[in-house]
């Protein structure tokens, strides 16, 4: 849980809306080798997650499909764990959990954060002061502390860990949205819309939201990687996924007891986490570059 979301600078170009523009956007995006690799990693991870039952040679929960703590072999590509479960199958199934954790956590933090940021930025005055002060407080608690406190209250489970991680990242989204709204608010089109008497709701959703979408998407993409890391860290500490869940952090934690005798049990889930997180980071970088006019220019 030591990773950080780097907040993109607000002047990010609006997301291209038309079809042709979108294609061009994709071209720009995947011109960078990083984004290409990231895209491929995520595509593979997604495919693995969707087709897990077809890909995994064994039931991820079934014990004794091999002898215990067997090193990687032709039959068990990643070896077996202390229950004789096939590690490859567990990691394949674990990808489902990992993606779900990442997406759900980001959904939670994004929804709450964007809402907070928009309301604060749009409303101004005391609403702004209270909300953003609150966000500052959350921010200074650090994600780790918030996640720990949430799990301490809710009790350890994967769902609770996901919620905890989601809550802990709210400030990032709130701040980015807030910053972007402030920029948009001062633009001509917005003032014009306000002048013709558009309703608050309409102003926010029709005018502001589409224009601040791209920085949010960049933050969210990197945010998934942060969520995955945080949740696996919680599972590693025993505060997240519970047995027999093949969550990667939990597999890693269990493997710690015999990481000398069977290093593969800790190596493969660690690699799986690192690679997936890398995929989101690379794609996030690519998106940032493709959407950030400043970066493109230089």
């Amino acid at each position: 849980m030591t990773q950080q979301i780097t907040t993109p600078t607000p002047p990010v170009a609006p997301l291209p809306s038309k079809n042709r523009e979108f294609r061009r956007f994709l071209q720009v995006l995947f011109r960078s080798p990083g984004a290409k690799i990231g895209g491929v990693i995520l595509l593979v991870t997604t495919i693995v997650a969707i087709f897990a039952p077809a890909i995994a040679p064994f039931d991820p929960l079934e014990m004794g499909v091999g002898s215990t703590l067997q090193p990687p072999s032709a039959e068990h590509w990643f070896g077996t764990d202390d229950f004789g479960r096939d590690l490859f199958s567990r990691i394949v199934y674990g990808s489902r959990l990992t993606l779900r954790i990442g997406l759900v956590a980001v959904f939670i933090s994004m929804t709450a954060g964007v809402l907070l940021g928009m309301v604060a930025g749009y409303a101004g005055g005391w609403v702004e002061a209270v909300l953003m002060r609150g966000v500052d407080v959350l921010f200074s608690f650090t994600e780790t502390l918030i996640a720990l406190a949430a799990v301490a209250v809710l009790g350890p489970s994967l769902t609770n860990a996901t919620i905890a991680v989601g809550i802990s990242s709210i400030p990032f989204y709130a701040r980015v949205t807030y910053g972007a709204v402030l920029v948009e608010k001062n633009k001509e089109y917005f003032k014009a819309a306000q002048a013709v008497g558009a309703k608050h709701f309409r102003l926010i959703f029709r005018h502001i939201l589409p224009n601040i979408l791209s920085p949010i998407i960049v933050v969210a993409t990197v945010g998934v990687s942060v969520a995955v890391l945080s949740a696996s860290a919680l599972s590693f500490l025993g505060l997240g996924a519970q047995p027999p869940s093949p969550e990667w952090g939990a597999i890693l934690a269990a493997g710690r007891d015999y990481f000398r005798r069977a290093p593969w049990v800790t190596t493969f889930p660690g690699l799986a986490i690192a690679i997936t997180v890398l995929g989101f980071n690379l794609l996030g970088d690519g998106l940032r570059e493709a959407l950030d006019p400043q970066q493109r220019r230089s």
Partner: protein
Amino acid sequence: MTRYFIKRLLGGLFTIWITTIAVTLLIHLVPGDPVQIMYAQSQSTTPEQIEQIRRNLGLDRPIYEQYIMYMGRVLQGDFGTTIRGNQPVLDLLLVRLPNTLLLAVTSLIITMVVGVTAGFFAAYKRGTWIDTTLMTGAIVGISVPSFWLGLMLISIFSVRLGWFPVSGTNLNNLVLPALTLGLANAASVSRLTRSSMLDVLSQDYMRTARAKGLAETLVLSRHAFRNGMINVVNMLGLQFTYMMGGAIVVENVFAWNGIGRLAIQSIFQRDYPTIQGFILIFATVVVIVSIVLDLLYAWIDPRITYN
């Protein structure tokens, strides 16, 4: 400057105040009966005794009264006692806090030295293989879970090579945990440094300096590096916060006797007074250090205006 100082201070106090409220509420958000869970150890505890404990803890009173009671005790340095063994929570935390701070500060130094150096060279050698290598390393670095990195370091440097001891909380044992935590964050610092340096290098005054015919090293050291560093130093407070958060995980990998380890143990034992104390101490330290670093930065960088 004074106004800025006061504003930061008030902001910090506000955060700590909110923390105290959150901490008081925490125990009420726990599903089930916290008293019964807390005093699970004493199986023989009768319903009357449970009631007595509830009264002693003030849990039978309205919540605002509980808050005032809690605050009254906290302000006198009484954070309550642990459920197990009845030890004063504050002592327990204060004994470990220096360990956590030592780990966090050492890691912060590693992060800054490694991250800034890498970021600076990547920016300076922009577009070359050095840049590519460094930045690839950085993005891989931010993707590796710290707990895994820690285990790998243990297995290589302690178990295989026997260079470092594997246990204990003393200076010998500081190297691996500090490296784990420092390197994980160095990756993101190097990325930030690079982009900040790129900004500086593209500024007009850089071109002017070069045009004036200043030696390249002088240009870099006097203009580029110093200006680029302003943004980096600005992140110190935030970085420290991350180090403190990361320490919770890393302490548990390396059995480092800090407050993070204690926190995890307390969560497993449902030792709520300790969890409350931990959150309070953690938030206070983070707030104070951030303020100090921010002020330091404000003092160093005369360009900043405060309003």
